[in-house]
């Protein structure tokens, strides 16, 4: 069982690591979620004993599951949810500012922003930005209120 549990942890972690390396920010977030799952599974599997739920009245003569790792896993699950929600809103925020979730496009946008800032220092006044990247669909006329 130990072997199988380790294998489970490994598959979850490997899939997560694979997703984190994608150019799509949403996949990166999901990769983080998978890695959290892998960690939670690992915490639970690290329990010293396995058996009945640790709730009184305790069954006689049968082994009780380790309650300490359960408490840890429980908070870990809630925290990974908090982190995932924060990441999602970060991703969404990035989208609302750059209209893209493509890491390559975002890198280009950042480099462009740097160039603009240097230009601003040079000319000594703010420069107007065009808010969507080259090649992206322009906003439709009249879409804004």
């Amino acid at each position, binding site marked *: 069982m130990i072997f199988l549990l380790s294998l489970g942890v490994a598959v979850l972690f490997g899939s997560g690591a694979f997703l984190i*390396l*994608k150019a799509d920010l949403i996949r990166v977030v999901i990769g983080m979620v998978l890695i959290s799952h892998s960690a939670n599974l690992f915490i639970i599997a690290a329990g010293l004993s396995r058996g009945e739920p640790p709730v009184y009245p305790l069954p006689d003569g049968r082994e009780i599951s380790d309650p300490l790792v359960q408490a840890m896993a429980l908070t870990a699950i*809630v925290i990974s949810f*908090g982190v995932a929600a924060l990441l999602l809103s970060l991703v969404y925020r990035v989208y609302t500012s750059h209209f893209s979730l493509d890491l390559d496009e975002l890198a280009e946008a950042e480099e462009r922003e740097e160039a603009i800032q240097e230009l601003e220092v040079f000319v000594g006044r703010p420069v107007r930005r065009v808010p969507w990247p080259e090649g992206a669909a322009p906003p439709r006329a009249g*879409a804004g209120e």
Partner: protein
Amino acid sequence: MVRAGRCGEGKTVLNPTIWLLVLAFAAAPVTAVVGGMRPHLAARAGTVMAGLAFGAALWGWLGDPAPVDVAWAPEWGLRFAFELDGLGALYSLLATGIGLTTLVYAGGYAPRHLAHQGRPAAEATRLYGLLLLFMGAMVGLVLAQDLILLFVFWDLTAVVSYLLIGYDRQEAESRSAALMAIVVTGVSAVLLLIGALMLGARYETFAIPEIVAAVGASEGDGYLTGTAALMAVAGLAKSAQVPFHFWLPRAMAAPTPVSAYLHSAAMVAAGVFLLGRLYPILEAGEGVRDGLLVVGLASMGIGGVLALTRDVMKQVLAYSTIGQYGYVVTMLGLGGEAGAAGAAFYVVAHAVAKSALFYTAGAVSEATGETRLAHLGGLRRDLPLLGVGSALAAASLGALPLTVGFFKDELLFHAALERGAVFAGLAAVGAALTVAYVWRFWAGIFLGPRRAATEWLPRSLVLPVVVLGVLGVLGGFVVWPVADLASEAASATILATVPVDPAYHLDPRAENLLALAAFALGAGIVVSRRWWERFALDLSRAGERFGPARGYASLLVGLNGLSDGVHRIEVRDLRARVASVLVPCALLVGAAVLAAPTFGEFRAGSVEWDDLPLILVLLVGCGAAVATAFAGDHLTMALVVSGVGYSLAVFYVFYGAPNVALVAVLIETIFTLLFLGMLVLLPPRVAEFAASRRVEGVRRGRRDPLIGVVAGLFAFVVAWGTLSRPSPAESVASAQIALTPDAHARDVVTAILADFRGLDTMGEATVIAVALIGIASLLRRGDLVALQSREAPQEGRPPVTTVMTQTVARLLFAPTLVVAAAIMVKGYADTGDGFSAGVIAALGVLLQYVAFGHAEVERRLPVHRALYLAIAGMGIALLTTFLPAVFGRPLLTHWPPAGDEALRIGSLELITAVVFDVGVFCIVFGFAVGAIDVIAHGQRAFRRAAV
């Protein structure tokens, strides 16, 4: 009048040391407060405070100060140790005395300066406050008897000097000058810290007297030499000595009061103060004193010659300061009684004269609008009082007889003669250069034909010059106060009684002859300007071309380039950055696994028939994870990733962890809904991108699967290695299981969360609250509408909910909350706790969103208060955590204590652990609702933009 003994401990009210520290540090805040309320009174308040601090310093010098010694971080041997010894008295009198005149001067200067630049007059308060803050830092520095404390004040002076030099922050020149000053003095401050830590490591104390005594008792070696050299470099950079001198002329971009204070009496004086304070350590370092001698002489020469070539008044004075502190460093390098005494005396005499000359330069450019000597001249008739005052100061700096300056040169010659005739000759040349540039400065302004018109000057710009000039002449007749100060300071420097007794001797002794030679040579330099001018200008040009300033510039360019390069690498490829974090981590952990004593003891573990459901569920979970990794679009991904979560939840059920399973199911549901909700917000373009080949990234080949496999293998080895370790016979868990009935609980997990390890839960709940604040500030309501209207999605979708759904949702809402409450309150008796209750209640609210839409929910429920709910929950949890501490109990001690019967209402037990759980519930509920609300709000704004 050398202070022999110290008065008894325990004096506080009548201890001048305390008063000096308090007044010096209160000066800046008091001035800032007064200036904030009544800007026109700020200068007066600052002057009064500086005056009080000066009074306290005088009292400390004449009176009987006791040391102050308070524990700071005793386990590291750090103390707040202050003592008003000879060095402290001299430099604190300088810092507060010149500070006082500077405040008077700044009171007249700052309003005019700000008016010239078109800045509001209230900004003057900032200048006064910073000057006084600098004064406080100087006083702290010179009284500190602990190396780390000394470093803290040393760094504080550097930081405040940065703000002061860059006071005219709209000028690029000021900003770069300030940057240069803080880079040079700040980097060298790090050397001081390293030296302090090296000394602390060897002598196991940071107390300066103890270290000095220990150094004195030991033999010098390489370690000590290195330490001494590091600290000496810090002091030399601060005092603007060659080759770190280049920052000082640039710092003249500061307003004149700043230059007058920092660059005559305070900042640059701090450097030689450090050399004086640590002199016994420097002396123990082999060759360090010779190094000081070389640097001092070089600074004397370079400062003196370049001062002759400069045309801008303040530049002349800046190079003069470099040269003058070169004298002081030279004398410390010469060493011995004469050197120490001369150095201390010189600092006082120079500071008084030089600050007066700085004030003169500022007053003249205020009156005429000119800063260059070439455009000035003949002002003796227009500004007679200023002319006389600065003439006295110039005479003192030029060491003419009947001024205090004469004695400074006498002591210099005396110290040089003790070492050898060569040094005496060099000293005389240096003195001659001083005479020459002082004459050039004063005569260039006040003599010759009139070249510029003047306007009226306020008294506060002239008075400090006259006062300091008169003081300089007074010191020429009544020399004992300065001599006493110098004697005490020198005694504190070399730890031996040093008599200083300067007097006029009307006989042909060597000192007098050298002085005469210096005057004659100085006059010769003035007269023969035509012959040497080319050479001096060439030297100056060569310095600019090949000097250390160029090294600094190329260093800055190089650092900028490096930073840009690293940044570009980081920005260009997030994945490379992720890999660059993951790979070293993996290597480190892998090394730790290999080094672990149990490495190699892998166990496969037994598999029984009962485990079959576990294996099947695990198989499903793993399959879903792989499917997630290769999912073609976001929607599929959302569904299969929730499959991973749900199968893990089922796994927890079979594993004997119903609490975890409950939370996992609930969390998975709410996360999936949030995720889907967010996908709706994104336009089809993003979905197209997600389904395309481009997600692999343009710069990446096919290594991602390989990296994924390697990462998985790594996780496998770590997990297997860990799980294979034999379990200890006795675990914490069994004790916790046994204790649970005492905590009035039946569910062990809940008891652990709310009681046994409640502080951990507290910390974890805080993480959630912080994440919610992050989400709320990232997606602030209202901000998004403007952003979203730029790119509209497809046509608005038709409403998907029917009357049936709405009715069910309405019916279900109240029961959900009841279930949540029950799970929370009964969590102690059965599966469930604050976490799961919070998520259940949030699901109830989410259902309302699905059924009725955002607008309706917002109308019916106070969802926008979710953040407050989370903060209130935080408050409840904190209160239950820390309230026991008020009664002297350990944190999170719950009531009723073990064994006591709890209050019951029906089958409900009233215990404080439940209150803690209510706090956790509020945090989780508030978090989930807040996150849902933000996303839903975005959707609504989005739809509106589309219509």
